């Protein structure tokens, strides 16, 4: 198995308090990994370390091909990450602009996104969009340069259920077409089981890995999958791990 990310004894402290303690695991290439855990356990901190946003940590991790062209991040506060002075078109093409793509290449990439169903009024501004559309815009911007590694922090938390399901569908379509490695944080067990190959359950602080649960269901996982026994079986395993480490302790 090829690993995209290898973590060894990762540790993070805020002053005397240990937030993350001894996280050692590997994330396989071309998989979706969901990280679940209680509030404030350091899920975002872990993602910030892995994405290079936080360099003040202990232990070590390696990422294969860690250049900016191959990595992208969708922030939890997606609204703040969009640029309201730019049109939707200029928002989603920002990464390509920064990386020096030509106008023709940019137009081609936008067309590629349209074919995936990720379409917006190009001349509108993000502040005219609904929360769901803004999240979709942030998602499109994050994937327009076809990152090999995609970090997503609570992507669906601010969305209503309908938009939540829509975005899950887009994420799967994108994943099936480009096969990136996706690491997503979520506090919603249903989302985690619906989308991920591997679900890492984190404990309370100081955060450790409580359990890693594998989900071998094939993609695309449609809405019927959410009603299946297979889904419920995995969800029940995740819930048990969550219960053992978070609720009972």
């Amino acid at each position, binding site marked *: 198995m090829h690993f995209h990310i290898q973590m060894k004894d990762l540790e993070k402290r805020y002053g005397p308090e240990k937030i993350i303690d001894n996280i050692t695991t590997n994330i396989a290439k071309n998989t979706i990994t969901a990280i679940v855990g209680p509030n404030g356990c350091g899920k975002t901190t872990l993602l910030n370390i892995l*994405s*290079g*946003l936080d360099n003040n940590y202990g232990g070590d991790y390696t990422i294969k091909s860690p*250049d*900016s*062209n191959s*990595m*992208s*991040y969708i*922030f939890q*506060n997606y609204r*703040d*990450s969009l*640029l*309201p*002075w730019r049109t939707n078109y200029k928002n989603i093409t*920002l*990464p390509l*602009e*920064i*990386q020096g793509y030509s106008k023709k290449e940019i137009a081609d990439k936008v067309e590629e996104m349209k074919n995936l169903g990720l379409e917006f009024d190009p001349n509108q*501004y993000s*502040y005219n969009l609904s929360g769901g559309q803004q999240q979709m815009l942030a998602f499109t911007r994050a994937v327009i*340069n076809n990152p090999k590694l995609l970090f997503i922090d609570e992507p669906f938390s601010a969305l209503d259920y309908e938009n939540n399901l829509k975005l899950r569908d887009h994420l799967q379509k994108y994943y099936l077409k480009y096969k990136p490695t996706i690491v997503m944080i979520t506090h919603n067990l249903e989302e985690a089981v619906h989308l991920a190959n591997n679900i890492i359950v984190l404990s309370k602080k100081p955060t450790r890995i409580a359990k890693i649960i594998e989900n071998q269901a094939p993609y695309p996982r449609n809405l019927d999958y959410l009603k299946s026994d297979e889904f419920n079986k995995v969800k029940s395993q995740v819930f048990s791990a969550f219960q053992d480490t978070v609720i009972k302790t």
Partner: protein
Amino acid sequence: MKKIYFLIGPIVFIVIWELVYLSQIINNFFLPSPQEVFLSLITLFSSLSIFLDLGITAQRVFISLTLAIIIGFPIGLLLGYYEKVYASLEVLIDFFRSIPPIALFPLFVLILGIGDSSKIGAAIFAATLLIIFNTAKGIINTKKTRILAAKLMGATKKQIFGKILLWESLPQTIIGLRTAASFSLVVIVATEMFIGTYAGLGRRIIDFQYIYNVSGMYAVILITGLFGFALNFVFIWLEKRYVHWYGK
């Protein structure tokens, strides 16, 4: 219907003015009727000389504001970008911002003479500090997520500055410009009342006061107010046109 709401305030104001005039709560010598002031306005505009005063005051405000932007905007951007430099200068900026510019006018007269330079110098001083402060604050208050997002996209410092910080600073900068424009007008009109000018709205107000032409004085005050209002309106228009995302 909504369009005529803006007229209600001024109409009520004129009615109250007329009522106060009629009731003679204030001596009519000090508060002439709206009609008298309106007639003075017509006389002033028909004599055309008021246009020279208005033009001279506008020119002084325009020169001081333009120079204040040329000096203040780049300095504000740099101070906002280098937060530690801003932090080390913040006390000084706040201190100088707290000095009423009129208090420094005698100093400017001493250094620059009694001509236009000292008036414009005092206005530049007031406006520049406001522009520096607001532009720097605009950059400092940039949403950190946007900078992080750009960094993760591989943006260079120059790209972060040009594509994020400069734009983020605009709403606050426009607020600074609006305030600076009002301050420039205040300082210019006030300094015109002192010495060394042959024309200007301030000069005209003080001249009318000297000869007890009270309705004429009110008329020029009204013109000054309307000029300030128009100046403010220009910046509101600029804000709506170029900082359309502000507050949304």
